[in-house]
């Protein structure tokens, strides 16, 4: 997982599995650290996420809640079909803003 700054938006390029255990913990810690450091415009690029389970979804939701409660926003970019399916099944499509284009996603924060 790496982060990069595009203007005032922090893009988090998530790679691999977000499942119960190390994957979900690392994901949670990264979001919390960014929020603690005042990064409140977070764009999660999930293009390289191979697997996400309900624990991973839970961490995404927790991150969303944490940042939103601080006046920020968490949005999603480049969902794979599998992650898209998960968001539909869990109705989280109604919670997260989802983008396929990074520039458009970054613009949406302003």
């Amino acid at each position, binding site marked *: 997982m790496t982060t990069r700054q595009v203007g005032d938006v922090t893009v988090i390029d998530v790679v691999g599995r977000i499942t119960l255990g190390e994957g979900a913990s690392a994901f949670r810690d990264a979001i919390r650290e960014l929020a603690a450091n005042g990064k409140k415009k977070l764009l999660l690029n999930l293009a390289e996420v191979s697997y996400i*389970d*309900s624990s991973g*979804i*839970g961490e995404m939701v927790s991150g969303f809640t944490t940042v939103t409660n601080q006046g920020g926003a968490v949005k999603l970019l480049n969902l794979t079909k599998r992650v898209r399916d998960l968001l539909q099944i869990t*109705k989280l499509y*109604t919670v997260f803003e989802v983008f396929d284009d990074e520039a458009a996603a970054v613009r949406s924060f302003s």
Partner: protein
Amino acid sequence: MTLVLESTLESVDIAEERVLSEAAQAGFDEDQQHHIGMSVRECMVNAVVHGNRYNARKKVTVSISRSAERLEVIIADEGEGFDMSNLPDPLADENLLRHSGRGLLLMQAFMDEFQIRPHHPRGTEVRMVKYLGKNNQ
């Protein structure tokens, strides 16, 4: 085939791997295998974490059987059991932002048959079936 596994997260990987091996041999496609694997993973996490609560004296039993038409997986823990009717609906608006509680929903979405019942003498048993040729997602 029956596996008797420890109440650890390593057992989650073992069960998923064994079931996926059977699913591949049965002829399920890649997406179906993903759904089966994820359902087993979610069920095993429930059994280890919520059922047996990582208790080293309690086991998780995984029974896998397959025919030309279907794959059946039964996962039983030795926990205290629970009442499904008491679980919050993860799709209700007021629950959408809850951290947990989506595992059963995913299993039900991904498998063709899903049943949950008390396991004798104690614990919870989940039975899941996936049919070849059906695609519920």
